[in-house]
């Protein structure tokens, strides 16, 4: 079993709801506990959506950073559904 934690960047810029959240979920499905997923999004709804998703799925929202023209949303995988 690999114990190396990965840092994945998922680029959802340009796509709108439910694009970013499904992109994030796909990355989540192939991730392991401890992995960090960084979602890049231009959809203004992504911040609230990912916050709700993290709360619901039991994962940890590390940071939301506003960049020039897009947002970086960083989530740590702390819970995996079997």
């Amino acid at each position: 079993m690999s114990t190396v934690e990965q840092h994945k960047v998922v680029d959802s810029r340009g796509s709108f709801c439910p694009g970013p959240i499904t992109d994030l979920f796909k990355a989540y499905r192939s991730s392991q506990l401890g992995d960090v997923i960084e979602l890049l999004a231009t959809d203004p709804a992504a911040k609230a959506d990912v916050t709700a998703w993290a709360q619901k799925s039991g994962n940890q929202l590390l940071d939301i950073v506003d960049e020039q023209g897009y947002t970086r949303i960083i989530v740590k995988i702390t819970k995996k559904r079997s």
Partner: protein
Amino acid sequence: MRIELAQVTQLKTEAKGEQTERLLIILSKGTMDMAAPAFMIATTGATMGKEVHMFFTFWGMNAINKKTVNSMKVASVGNPGVPMPNILGMIPGMTAMVTRMMNGKAKKAKMPSIPDMIKMAKDLGVKLHACSTTMEMMGTTKDLLIPEVDDVVGAATMLSLGEGGQIIFI
């Protein structure tokens, strides 16, 4: 015409220790602007860890019929949301024009097509159920439905699929 009722997919939530929340979306309308939100909500629900079921009834069956799934339209009549005088909607060709306009907007917003949304929903574990009464009424057989459809069920099964969960009627 007789409909063969397919084996009903497992009704009970698989026991995994914790209770999975359920979401049932009933789609009764057969236009693109009704089907797209239904699939968007279904897909999102699945990413949130919900057990999602979609029940297609009446015109909602257009979304799972091989003949119509690729060409769902947007109504120009009786749709005051369309930015033009409603009476113009009656002119022949208007439905096609409004549909083209909406598809253009959808494409610009990088919104996936209905068939792509169906694939995405299925990939995330959303279950698709066709309404047996509608099939009987419209003379639709299971082979006319897209292969992504899980089964043909009645209202009682549909309600039991949504029991205790959120139900959205479109």
